């Protein structure tokens, strides 16, 4: 069964929107529950998908808020990557794909992915340190599992951005060839 380019485009658009909305819901839920736990510490028992940091909140609130900030930041950055993908895809013209706006969008996707990965790695290291100190960080690490994958994605997208830049030069030259 052959899939037309238009169908593929629509499918990609729908998929990225679904992922983006899912990430926003996750980030929003984590943020809300962390903030709510400041007023009702019982909320720390189930911050999101069973994440229980009530022990950490009791023993060391500083670390608790630091983890909350890091986890929320990583999730927010992931959502930012996907909204950039959506906005770049919207700017793309199939007849003249190599445009400065799309090139800038692709570069920004790589920067956001890189920052997401780096922040995730920092957060992972921080969680490891807390675990070695004997503090209970439950399954907070599961929200940061894909940091290395994000860095790999950032590098690949960066290479694509460079190729795209060359594509723009070639397209401009072609446009000015009569």
């Amino acid at each position: 069964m052959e899939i037309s380019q238009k169908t593929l485009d629509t499918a990609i658009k729908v998929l990225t929107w679904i992922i983006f909305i899912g990430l926003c819901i996750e980030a929003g839920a984590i943020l809300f529950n962390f903030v709510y736990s400041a007023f009702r510490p019982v909320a720390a028992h189930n911050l999101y998908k069973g994440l229980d940091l009530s022990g950490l909140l009791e023993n060391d609130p500083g670390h608790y808020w630091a983890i909350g900030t890091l986890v929320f930041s990583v999730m927010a950055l992931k959502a930012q990557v996907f909204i950039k993908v959506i906005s770049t895809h919207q700017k793309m013209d199939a007849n003249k794909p190599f445009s400065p706006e799309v090139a800038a969008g692709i570069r920004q996707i790589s920067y956001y992915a890189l920052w997401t990965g780096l922040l995730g790695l920092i957060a992972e290291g921080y969680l490891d340190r807390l675990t070695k100190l004997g503090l209970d960080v439950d399954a907070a690490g599961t929200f940061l599992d894909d940091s290395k994958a994000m860095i790999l994605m950032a590098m690949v997208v960066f290479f694509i951005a460079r190729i795209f830049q060359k594509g723009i030069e070639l397209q401009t030259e072609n446009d000015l060839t009569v």
Partner: protein
Amino acid sequence: MPIVVNLDVMMAKRKMSLNELADKVGLTLANLSILKTGKAKAVRFSTLEAICKALDCQPGDILEFLADKQ
């Protein structure tokens, strides 16, 4: 740019408008304007051939090299 396109000179000699030339050569008006105003980065031989046929001239009548002043 060192290569100067003297299309308007030949067009005036042959009393041909840009529209007429575009029709004869098979280029759009926009592309021919790019050539005429010196914004073109490259010219295909096929285009040069068509222009020379339409204006009954040689490539040297349309293209001129002027060294950059230093």
